[in-house]
């Protein structure tokens, strides 16, 4: 829908179309199937019978990034993994969202070391952060509901999730990657 964006003022027709599409979007968030560390175990637990993520319409864990809407970054993002996470994000079609699950992916967690990215928001725009080490499935569901609220404010006329990469963030990331590479003799 990129060719439609920023072409309209807010009016009755646009708001109605927005309402219908947002309703569908927030009720059918398909997460990408991947996990980075222990938080992923809690993410997997959220799709089991006891917690059942299907109630929110997110049961369809997609194996291909081309088909998913939601990236749940669950676990420690090491610098070696960071470019791959970024690539997965780039491969997902718009509109797409990111939930940063757990302390590690939000701020680096206990691992303030040369090998760990201090927060996944340095490489991809994050919509909802979940605290916890690891967070329980209920926390993930709360984040999902918060994300649904956010999607509700989306519009054909303007996207509110337009948090893009900051240049300085990118520089910082590259520097850290370089540090990691020089620390690792080849």
């Amino acid at each position, binding site marked *: 829908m990129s060719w439609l964006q920023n072409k309209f003022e807010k009016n009755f027709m646009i708001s109605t179309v927005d309402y219908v599409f947002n309703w*569908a979007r927030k*009720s*059918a968030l*398909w997460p990408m199937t991947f996990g980075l560390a222990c938080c992923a175990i809690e993410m997997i637990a959220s799709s089991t019978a006891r917690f*059942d993520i*299907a109630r929110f*319409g997110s*049961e369809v864990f997609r194996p291909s990034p081309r*088909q998913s809407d939601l990236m749940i970054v669950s676990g420690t993002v090491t610098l070696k993994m960071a470019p791959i996470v970024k690539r997965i994000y780039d491969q997902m079609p*718009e509109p797409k969202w990111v939930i940063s699950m757990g302390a590690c992916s939000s701020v680096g967690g206990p691992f303030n070391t040369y090998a760990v990215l201090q927060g996944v928001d340095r490489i991809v725009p994050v919509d909802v952060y979940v605290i916890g080490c690891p967070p329980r499935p209920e926390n993930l569901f709360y984040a999902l509901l918060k994300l649904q609220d956010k999607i509700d404010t989306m519009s054909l006329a303007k996207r509110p999730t337009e948090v893009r990469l900051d240049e300085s963030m990118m520089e910082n990331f590259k520097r850290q990657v370089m540090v990691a590479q020089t620390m690792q003799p080849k």
Partner: protein
Amino acid sequence: MSSVIWRIVGGVLNVGIVLLVAPLGQGVLRKVTARVQSRQGPPLWQPYFDLLKLLGKEDIESGETPRMQRFAAYLSLATVLAVACLVPMGFASPMNGAADIILLIYLLTLCGICTLLAGLAAGSTYSLVGASREMMSMIALEPVFAIALIVGALHTGSFRLDTVLNGSVYGTAGVPWSGLIMLAVMILSFQAFVQRVPFDISEAETELMEGPLMEYSGPKLALFKYAQMAKLVIYSALFVRMFVPWGAGFTFPLAGLVFWAMFWAKVAVVVLVVTLVAATHARYRIDQAIRFFAGMFAAALGALVLASYGY
């Protein structure tokens, strides 16, 4: 002239019904699966949300040959809807005199070929494996459905849709042995025709990442998903018309409505059975499935021989 108009109206009505009902069938399938696994499950209308969301997403054409990919996506839904025009959905088939069962067999094969095209056009390793699996199972399986139709045609001596799609497999003087064999074969291989769990080998999500559909995103994926949902309804309707057609074919308005409702109740039962089998079985490996299909094919050939001798 008026018959042409009625054909068009009937065809559009059939297509509309299939488009409306297909996601609901999928919703029931997902809900029942969830209940069997003691989960709450998504709401019944979840597939409508899924389709609408997919239609509103960005369309990335990332395969080797985007033009072929596009063609395969449009062709798959178009073929399924063309089949919907031929199948009698409670009332007589709208395209009755305009098409015969040869066209039906041809269109049903084309459905599988669309998946093949999609896999070949995507050109990634997973989708190629998926395409080769689809090809193997198609070669083993498609003749079975064709034989079921041909057995009916042999019994009635006609290729007309309304004659063959009316329980014609039982159309012998004595005990319809060939019909009963075909009924057993169709029940056993029905999951494979509608691409549900024990036989969804070509797009095994957990091992092949959706196989041929891997590179599809947004609206074209929605078309493929829609075609798959519609396939379940259409094959169920075909099954009901071929093997349990009793009580249909009345044209008196009130009785017609009753039997229309009965037809859809039977289709719903078939969908439920498919769901229960899908929820309680694990996927077969491709070699196991091919061996199974080969057995089915042999039994179907036996039925064909019996039918040609009039049993």
